């Protein structure tokens, strides 16, 4: 009950990874190759073989995750092992190369491997930290129920807009409201909402589309309007109601954007981690072929 991937089954794969690492370091220290330590010694080949097999196995997580009928352990167990053995790979790969780097396909494979592992570290960080933030931000709502609330507020706003100009303003603000968008908008929680202000509220002549980021402009325009309607009356009441509505909408939109943002963060790293893994696989195959046929 309540086991994160890090302490799955009392972190059994941590101990496995540590054992592999300690053995690798010890052997590396003990080994006295002719010349510099490198991938061509018997230890280099051994570590290289272990590393290559590990990479293939780490990649298989993607298959296991989708093999829903499989009874080969649980996906959580696989993920836990993936994390710890993937970390150990950093050490094994480095020792395999004996700290020799250069501008060649071998170092390219190494760099890609490091990039994959580092992006994986980011993934672990995200998986441990963000689920909780998601819950806090939702505070009992779901994305659907939040969107539903926004739609209801919009309906109410359209109904209480008492004058044709107010109606146009409200319609334009609602129609121009944007949530989500491309990956950048999602990650930064920025929308590109727009509004065009009817002349009655802004006498600069041209009605044009302006940024209504965070619903700030529409609230601003309504607040200005309210200050002009000092005598009260129907319109003042309507404007007051609209300000309250847009303020409520603003709060909801912030939560929605935050929700979208967290979901995006929880996913985006995989768009880096997985493609580079495949690039690594390609580089690894090249590396192996080059080593055996052309060295």
């Amino acid at each position: 009950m309540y086991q994160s991937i890090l302490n799955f089954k009392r972190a059994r794969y941590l101990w496995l990874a540590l054992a592999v690492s300690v053995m690798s370091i010890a052997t590396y220290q003990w080994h006295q190759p002719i010349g510099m330590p490198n991938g061509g010694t018997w230890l280099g080949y051994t570590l290289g073989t272990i590393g290559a097999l590990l990479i293939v196995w780490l990649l298989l997580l993607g298959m296991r995750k989708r093999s829903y009928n499989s009874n080969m352990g649980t996906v959580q167990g696989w993920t836990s092992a993936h994390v710890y053995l993937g970390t150990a790979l950093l050490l094994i790969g480095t020792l395999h190369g004996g700290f020799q780097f250069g501008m060649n396909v071998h170092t390219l494979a190494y760099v890609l491997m490091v990039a994959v592992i580092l992006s994986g570290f980011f993934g672990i960080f995200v998986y441990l930290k963000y689920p909780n933030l998601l819950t806090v931000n939702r505070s009992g709502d779901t994305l659907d129920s939040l969107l539903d609330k926004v739609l209801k507020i919009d309906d109410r706003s359209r109904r209480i807009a008492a004058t044709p100009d107010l109606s146009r303003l409200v319609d334009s603000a609602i129609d121009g409201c944007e949530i989500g968008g491309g990956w950048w908008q999602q990650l930064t929680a920025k929308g590109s909402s727009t509004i065009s202000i009817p002349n009655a509220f802004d006498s600069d002549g041209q009605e044009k589309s302006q940024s209504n980021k965070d619903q700030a402009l529409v609230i601003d325009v309504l607040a200005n309007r309210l200050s002009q309607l000092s005598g009260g009356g129907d319109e003042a009441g309507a404007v007051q109601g609209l300000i309250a509505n847009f303020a409520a909408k603003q709060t909801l939109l912030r939560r929605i954007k935050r929700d979208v943002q967290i979901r995006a963060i929880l996913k985006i790293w995989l768009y880096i981690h997985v493609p580079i893994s495949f690039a690594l696989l390609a580089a690894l195959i090249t590396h192996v072929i080059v080593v055996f046929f052309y060295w």
Partner: protein
Amino acid sequence: METFDIAVIGSGPGGMSAGAHAAELGLSHILLEGSPKHSNTIQKYQKGKHVMDTPTKLPLRSPLDFSAGTREYILDKWEEGMTSTNTNIQYGSEVSAIEGSKGDFTITLVNGKKIGAKFIILGIGVQGNPRKLGCPGDEFEHVQYQLDDPDEYKGERIAIVGAGDAAIENAIGLAGSNQVCIINRRDEFARAKQGNLDLITSSISEGVIECFYEANPARIEENPSDESRYIFFLSTPTGEVPVPVDRVIARLGAIPPRRLVESFGIEFPNDSPAALPELSSQYESNVPGMYVIGALGGYPLIKQAMNQGYEVVEYIQGNNIEPADHPLFVEAFDGLPYDKTIDEILEYLQASSPIYNGINPLNFREFILDSKVSQRAPGDELCVKGEFTDSFFVVVDGNAYVKLPGVGEFHFNRGGFFGEQSLISGRRRTATVYAGEGCVVVETPRRSMVKLINSVESVKRVLDEAFILRALQTKFAPNTPHDQLAEVVANTELKTFDANQNIYTEGEHGDEVHLIRIGSVTSVKQSNKKEVITSYMPVGHYFGEAGVMGDGMRTDTVRANVRTETICLNKASFVTLLEKEPGLQKEIQSHVRDRLTVEARMEAQPKGGELMSFLMSEGLGEGTDVLLIDETLCVGCDNCEKACAETHDGNSRLNREAGASFADVHVPISCRHCEHPHCMKDCPPDAIHRASDGEVFIDQEACIGCGNCVRNCPYDVISLQKNPAPKPTLLHWLLTGKGPGPGGKQYAEGETIKKAVKCDACKDNAGGAACVRACPTGAAMRLNPKDFVDLVGSRFGS
């Protein structure tokens, strides 16, 4: 007054079959139907719905055709059959009264017309007639009592009368493209489900739907000005209000047919809503000359009803034909060591046990057909301790036995029965029973037993007595022989408590001990003026013993989580048990100590108590296997849903994101495998079962897609789904990107059959539930409610 030999009332499958057979034989007959169409219940099915012809093995015996097909196909076939046989059907003839006796009945219709008949066949089903508006004008063409498809109406002014779920759902469904008002006799919507209540109140407050509260329909008049079709006058506390409308839809519920049936003179054995009228083996009721067939007689399946319609006409003619189910018995009794005819075996079986005494032969026939009669090899396990099976056994010949540690073997001989503990409690088997020498047993599924308990008073009494005796012995007095417990058993009482009812309250005096036999309870303590749940107790646990052992003051409040039944022992009885069983005192003291330790731990974690309350309020107290999601670990990848879909024909049976959360514990929409599954309550083909490990599942072969379980489940975890077409393999998808990926589904062309699907907790997979196995972060877990205390401990414990 027109007079006929046979009057059939109700033109469902049974009634039509009877009418058509009478027509075929050239008998004087009439078939009376209250509504303007035959087969009212089947007419109400959605368009194109596939209707099954279960039980498939039962041969059809009727002049009308019936085989599996769409609703339209079947209705057309029946229509054709009635025309070709020249069946004398009369529509719009609702019956209000029947008087007279065999050979001379007088049927009075609602419109006042009288019809004479020598014999009457009642096939009116159990749906009842919709309650009418009961005001002048309710006979107009556009006043209706049902709504098939809200999308059929556009741009109309529609008044909905009623405040229940049906009325609200209709109002919401129509409001999109019509101007809708809802007319509520009261000042609130008290009867509706929470979801519907939220929808209607928000629609009203937003002005989408207009609502007239405390309004009663006064009359409907045609509108001369032609602006709207009618004017609907409502009487309200402030006077009469005219509402212009084009259509009135009244959803006032149905009048159950029981009272009407009773007014004809037919008797029911008890007040249970599930009770059935007593019938002879020829479907004749206690009123001679009046026969009951179909659902009203307890036979909800179409084919059964049609066969009965045919048979009953034959019986009235004096032809004692063999019932259509005869070949099924030949098959069922194959391999039994009896050289007897079917009827003789049936008689022999019925004579075997006092449990069967009060059952009439017709019901017993059906009962045995539902059951399994078999000879078992000595040493065979009939039921296994710890399994969740819930069938009931009666020994017909030879014996069966349990091994009691320290005591030896206890034998059940001819007439002996077992299995009532699991049947009543919905819990695991409490003992393993083995077949002895020459053992022949009748094994009856839960549903048939429940039906029997509801319709035969004596069965319930005998079972309850056995239950109490065996439960007390298992729990308190394993070493005391049965006869010495008789007095204690006689002094116990079965008590029933509704959900959320307090069984006793902290601070009051009381010295009764309760042993839970159905449901579950929580113990609650007052701490800093707040209630803290300190423990959860399922079936088989007892409480209140501290009152007997101590000063009689209750130190906690015990509350039923769901409808709960307890065996209640008074102080004297409990003391007798303590005297008879020397080890009991010590055991109870240690039980009290253990519980106090848990309670102290829980009291120290008031947040934990709140989490417990939340889990209970979500209805998890009646579950046996509950899916929970730890929100601090869930990354929202939905791999659980994909795994579910991939392992279950492409239809996910869980909705991860929906559902409530509290203290980072999320309860997704997913089956909790209730102790007493609501879904099983009303399944015509008996397709819902409980597997030996407790999983409640739907047999897809048997399901007829009626949707009763979908409506009966309070947790919305069952849905009607089409069976998807096979998908390309994962590798194929990965390499080509063609077809739906993991979790996606693809339908075959023209596939129309929808069947009920729900979680089966992956009962056939040795590795356990796919949702949990597929969760990459360990957020998904499956728990039994009794693990909730540990869950709370791991959440809030130090």
